[in-house]
């Protein structure tokens, strides 16, 4: 099993086998960050550009650490420090980077589809680190990895995603991945933040948070993204916290072993209360630890896949793998 694409643009349409390959690989990569020397030489000589057109601490640091722990050379470019402020287009920026012979671009952009545009334009590999309200595949993968690690498996597990589904690329990537792996996904949030027709993705909608969490195995709490809302979608932050905030009263209705997740950054006291965010149930910092492992796995698998000759699409037989491993 190999990743057969040069890019990771989203989890929509990705096969269960491909997702599981990434998760299994990440489980191995996780150990590297525990070593005294947190570095392996596998991507030595590869150049990766982190092109972030939106602010990020977690995702950008996570990608950069993953790249460095695999020995890739990294360049960070942010919107403010780039020629974008002088009016350079995304296309020109990307083509200039490619002219410097880079191997992979990690891009975050406020416009949905920006990574796809680059993927079609360039020979370099592209990893989507969040495009508008579309997808954030590595966040989806690290959430799923954390769930699988904690729950043992995803099939028939009930995962609740609560918050602003309409504006959430994290929710979309989670939905695509979780549904593919056979989990039952329930979405919860104000009707103004629930895209019409979302049930077509194979999910259920339960507007009452108390009812939604009752038999859940995990609750993934989304950040209220005040910066993405063009109009006020709820009357006040206090009312949102009252109706959709995960606090101890909500936790009291959950199964005792159910997990609390949050992709960060946290608005404490809004979508999640202080005490719940800091409780034993919350695996928020483990998600962050797992994020580095997931990004290492994705970087490795994508750059490894690119090495292959294009004609070799078919799987090797067990004998061939065996024969080859003896030649090493």
């Amino acid at each position, binding site marked *: 099993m190999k990743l057969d694409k040069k890019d990771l643009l989203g989890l929509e349409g990705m096969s269960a086998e491909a997702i599981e390959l990434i998760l299994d*690989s990440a489980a*191995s990569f996780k150990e590297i960050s525990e*070593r005294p*020397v947190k570095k*392996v030489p*596998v991507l030595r000589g590869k150049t990766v550009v982190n092109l972030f057109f939106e602010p990020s601490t977690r995702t950008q640091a996570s990608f950069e650490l993953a790249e460095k722990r695999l020995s890739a050379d990294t360049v960070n470019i942010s919107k403010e420090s780039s020629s974008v402020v002088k009016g350079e287009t995304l296309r020109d920026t990307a083509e200039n980077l490619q002219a410097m012979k880079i191997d992979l671009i990690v891009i975050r952009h406020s416009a949905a589809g920006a990574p796809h545009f680059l993927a079609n334009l360039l020979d370099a590999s592209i990893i989507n680190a969040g495009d508008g309200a579309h997808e954030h595949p590595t966040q989806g993968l690290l959430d799923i990895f954390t769930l699988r690690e904690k729950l043992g498996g995803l099939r028939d597990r009930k995962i609740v995603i609560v918050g602003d589904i309409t504006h959430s690329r994290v929710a979309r990537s989670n939905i695509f991945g979780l549904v593919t792996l056979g989990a039952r996904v329930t979405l919860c949030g104000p009707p103004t933040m629930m895209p019409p027709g979302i049930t077509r993705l194979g999910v259920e909608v339960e507007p009452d948070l108390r009812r939604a969490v009752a038999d859940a195995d995990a609750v993934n709490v989304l950040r209220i993204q005040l910066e993405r809302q063009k109009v006020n979608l709820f009357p006040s932050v206090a009312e949102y916290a009252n109706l959709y905030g995960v606090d101890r009263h909500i936790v009291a209705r959950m199964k005792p072993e159910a997990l609390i997740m949050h992709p960060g950054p946290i608005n404490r006291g809004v979508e999640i209360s202080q005490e719940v965010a800091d409780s034993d149930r919350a695996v928020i910092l483990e998600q962050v630890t797992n994020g580095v492992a997931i990004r290492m796995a994705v970087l490795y698998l994508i750059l490894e896949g690119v090495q292959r000759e294009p004609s*070799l699409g078919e799987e090797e037989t067990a004998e061939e793998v065996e024969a080859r491993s003896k030649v*090493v």
Partner: protein
Amino acid sequence: MGFRTKSTIMDADQIRRAVKRVAHEIVERNLGVDGVIVVGIRRRGVFLAQRIAECLQNIEDQAVPIGALDITLYRDDFQVKTSNPVVGTTEIQEDIHDKVIVLVDDVLYTGRTVRAALDELIDFGRPKQIQLAVLVDRGHREFPIKADYVGKNVPTSETEIVEVHLTELDGCDEVILGERQS
């Protein structure tokens, strides 16, 4: 590409005896097993390392720590190989500083796997010594690497394939010599 079996080089009894002899040699060379850690190279080296550690415990009545190395990320053929196996987990729980590491693999051939394993081990600390134990040495080295303990030397041609089967993974213990068929 097919595979045709030519002959059985070692059967289960021969493997068992070879592992036992290698364990005795390790004790003899290191004057016991104090400070010795047995580290297997994935996948089959790990099972051989477990067997050697068991023998060492029987001989010296002292538990010997074991570890496992996955060398995928240290291979020198990332640029040329058409595909790689799934990355496995490396497990080195012990502090290897100033210890004697007995590195274990099933077949010693070009020496490239051992080169990668040496590089990976060094990232965990500075052992006093690294020794190499293999079940089969089939020759054709491409690097200046030599085994300290050898279960069996098997002269081969480069077109031949040596396959080690172990009960833990393959259901039986045997070493077979085969040939590639295109």
